[in-house]
């Protein structure tokens, strides 16, 4: 369903994809005396939700590319799906005795391969630290088994369309 509110100042549309679009006519800025300022009021509950998402993210990821996060904020549904996946990653890692900072790091960023134009993925990278390597070896697990598990979790948790855009790396 698409909801549109129209006034002489422009239109506000909430699209099917739950994207809010505010259209302001071009002449609004040039017509003399027509518009003195724009103020955008955001419901504090919405800000609270964004704040909550960023707080959740900061507990799940310790290497952040801010441009990537900025882009994710424009796609809140995608952001929430990524958070759910990251929480599942931590739960899985906890089950095999691995904890962030002590055994591994988590990075979220874009991987653009300069050698291949169009190689551009949102990457979630789990970087095993020395302690993490020792811990998994002690449990008879290797890096590839870890990668296989995390990749499989991503496929189970993320919607199919998003899954194709997100790559999971273990280093």
């Amino acid at each position: 369903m698409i909801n549109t509110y129209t006034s002489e100042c422009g239109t506000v549309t909430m699209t099917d994809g739950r994207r809010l679009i505010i259209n302001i006519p071009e002449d609004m800025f040039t017509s003399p005396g027509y518009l003195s300022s724009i103020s955008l009021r955001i419901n504090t509950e919405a800000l609270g939700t964004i704040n909550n998402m960023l707080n959740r993210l900061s507990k799940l990821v310790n290497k952040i590319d801010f441009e990537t996060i900025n882009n994710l904020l424009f796609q809140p549904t995608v952001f929430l799906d990524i958070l759910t996946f990251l929480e599942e990653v931590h739960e899985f890692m906890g089950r095999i005795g691995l904890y962030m900072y002590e055994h591994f790091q988590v990075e979220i960023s874009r991987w653009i391969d300069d050698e291949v134009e169009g190689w551009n993925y949102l990457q979630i990278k789990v970087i095993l630290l020395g302690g993490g390597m020792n811990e998994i070896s002690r449990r008879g697990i290797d890096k590839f088994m870890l990668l296989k598990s995390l990749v499989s979790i991503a496929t189970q948790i993320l919607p199919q369309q998003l899954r194709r855009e997100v790559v999971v790396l273990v280093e």
Partner: protein
Amino acid sequence: MSHRVFEPKTFYDLAIHVKNQLFHIIPQELKQAADRTCISRTYYAVFLSFRDKILVLPFQNAELRRRIERTNDAHAIVAETIRIIDADIGDFIVNLRKLRNDADYKTDIAPSPDKVAYAFKIANEIFSKSAFIVSKIKESDIISAWSKIQRRRQKERFYLE
């Protein structure tokens, strides 16, 4: 594609042979280069195997075929097509490419000893599923992969301008 005279998987077989049979006789100062080469060849074994199998599929788009056969775009097209069929295998290829990029270009950090074994395991898993994956690929998947890559490029150019 013209008649094939080389089986790309033998790059992987060679890498395993070097690591398991010859590594102990390689002079110490060449061991890191050998490790890097093993990782790099493993990626190319996987990439070229898929590329060649895609090229023997009956598809009509001659321009796309030329791109896969002759240009660097093949890396992105192959990876993206595989992702459409099986995201898990797609991620394995992406991980292998990351290992290869580091092995070929990152000269400031020595690859850790487990990297070669890691690359081998990833490749082994991919090869074990490759026949099944290739049997699922249709021309529409390759076209869809190429469209997605082009959209990404447009987006990248938009941000650069």
